[in-house]
């Protein structure tokens, strides 16, 4: 329990530090929001006045604190590009991104872990799994996206080429299947490799011999002594995968023309839509920290050594 609180506390601190670093980085990025807002025909004096109005002349730490306070109250600023509240701009697009990421994550868990477990069920599958996962890891999401669109959308016509659906969940999932596969494919391979290696390593541990020597059946040995222990690295990697999927959604949403926050980030960056870029970047950081914190909590629940090392 103590260690769980520690993990959550660590996550909150990471979130705070990371959000400041992002804020700092964006404030250093080329392109001044005041110049953009004032338009082409503004005089330098007008721009300067606007800078003061926007508070851009204040030190970055002060601006960060003000932004943090405002965003905690739900005020994420305004979008210059769309001339509306950032919060109300992002909100409807969050759902589709989360659905995409969740879908891809499910694919990773089911097929990644499944692939990694195949060699322990049928030992002759070990070699094929190694080859397939090595290939899978080396496919970037945008290449996977192009191939999937060409084959399954254009040639076979099984799935829609572009866009999202406003229909029911089934229809939405049908639209998101190819994007989710493109997003998941290299992580499926990676999680598959980690699972295979981890199960293999644990199966060779001496305590597994002890269990055999106590007359346990192979099935019980596998679930209680191999899988349970092998889950520890698998969970770590899965947490990282979930975090990386959120960032990966930028490429995949753009490739498939999905109106989520990933594609919104791209158009906002191009339009120098400062508040929106900031808000979406923070959502990514939040997702990253939440994913890794949840993975850490799962590890604490699973590995007693993590629990008492601190309290001892």
């Amino acid at each position, binding site marked *: 329990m103590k260690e769980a609180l520690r993990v959550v506390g660590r996550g909150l601190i990471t979130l705070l530090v990371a959000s400041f670093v992002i804020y700092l980085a964006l404030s250093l990025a080329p392109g001044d929001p005041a110049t953009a807002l004032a338009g082409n025909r503004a005089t330098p004096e007008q721009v300067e006045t606007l800078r003061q109005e926007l508070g851009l002349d204040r030190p970055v730490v002060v601006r960060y604190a003000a932004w943090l306070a405002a965003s905690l109250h739900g005020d994420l600023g305004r979008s210059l590009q769309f001339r509306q509240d950032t919060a109300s701009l992002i909100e409807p697009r969050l759902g589709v991104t989360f659905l995409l990421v969740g879908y891809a994550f499910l694919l990773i868990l089911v097929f990644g872990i499944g692939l990694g477990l195949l060699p322990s069920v049928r030992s002759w599958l070990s070699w094929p799994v190694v080859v397939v996962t090595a290939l899978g890891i080396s496919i970037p999401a945008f290449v996977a996206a192009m191939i999937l669109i060409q084959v399954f959308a254009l040639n076979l016509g099984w799935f829609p080429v572009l866009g999202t659906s406003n229909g029911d969940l089934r229809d939405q999932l049908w639209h998101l299947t190819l994007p989710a596969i493109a997003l998941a494919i290299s992580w499926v391979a990676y999680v598959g490799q980690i699972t295979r290696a981890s199960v293999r390593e644990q199966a060779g541990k001496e*305590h597994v011999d*002890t*269990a055999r020597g*106590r*007359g*346990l059946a192979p099935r019980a040995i596998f679930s209680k002594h191999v899988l349970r*222990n092998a889950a520890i690295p698998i969970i770590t990697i899965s947490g990282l995968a979930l975090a990386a999927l959120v960032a990966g959604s930028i490429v995949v949403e753009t490739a498939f023309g999905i109106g989520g926050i990933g594609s919104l980030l791209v158009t906002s960056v191009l339009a120098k839509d400062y508040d929106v870029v900031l808000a979406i970047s923070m959502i990514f950081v939040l997702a990253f920290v939440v994913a890794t914190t949840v993975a850490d909590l799962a590890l604490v629940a*699973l590995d007693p050594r993590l629990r008492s090392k601190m309290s001892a």
Partner: protein
Amino acid sequence: MTETLLELQHTGLDIPVGGRLLPVVHDVTLTIARGESVGLVGESGSGKSMTARTIMRLTRHDWRPRGAVRFAGEDVLAMGSRRLRQLRGAEIGMIYQDPRAHTNPVRTNGDSLLEGMLAAGVPRQEATERALGLLASVGIPDGVRRMAQYPHQLSGGLLQRIMIAAAMSMQPQLLIADEPTTALDVTTQEEVMAIIGEQRTERGLSLLVITHDLDLAAAVTDRIAVMYAGAVLEVAPSRSLHREARHPYTVALMTSRPALGSRRRIQTIPGRPVSAFEVGEGCVFAARCPFAVDHCRTERPELREVDGHQVACHRIDEIGDEIDALRGEL
């Protein structure tokens, strides 16, 4: 003569290395009677632990045991997997050199203690009661607390006691102790050996103690089998092995041991220890034996009865005087 419980006859083990089968155990012939305690001593890599694994068939699927292993008259090497699971734990228990490595770190000590009994169909309630009794008998009074703890919260000595209790929980007839004290500190070593000794006398258990420590073996066993490069070279009563060693290797082993209070220079055995797969057709010790002749290098000697010892040496009858002379240096 009491009833034989375990019988090894020309038992060997071949394991595949780089596509070839290589022997790690050549030839072990040994019997253990009911209630008897036998030591299996030898250098590192002499095949002691591999012999133990062969007895319990704790081998990988591509390892090839040879010869005969009979437990209570039943051929262990012919057992199917179901019968084998009954043998393991319920008839032969085993404890290991490193209790920490041999315990699953993410399961409680209670899980480890109970899993054998639960697998054998003992109800949880009864298994828990039995485990608590056993923990008390191996010197762990606060069993309930210990069972709720995890292995990393216990010292090596405590963990080994739990391993002993777990092995005893299935009421085996034979306990194989594979270097049970090597990973423990000296004071704990004695306690653990004493506990094993107590369990043996209380339960009429047969014991196979695997160790490289001749003194330890002499203290807790009735007979000692000396192994070298995968073969048993001499079997002798524990009391007389030290003074009356027969085999040239055993004698060399005895004279190469440091003794407290002795200012004698420690003798070494010339040459280097060889692995089981390096020896050819002949006697496994031939390459380092001062008495070896051509015959020794071409044909492997069988164990023969010589003055109450069993010795595997072709020249044992001819070299008696030389052996006596060597032993005189002790």
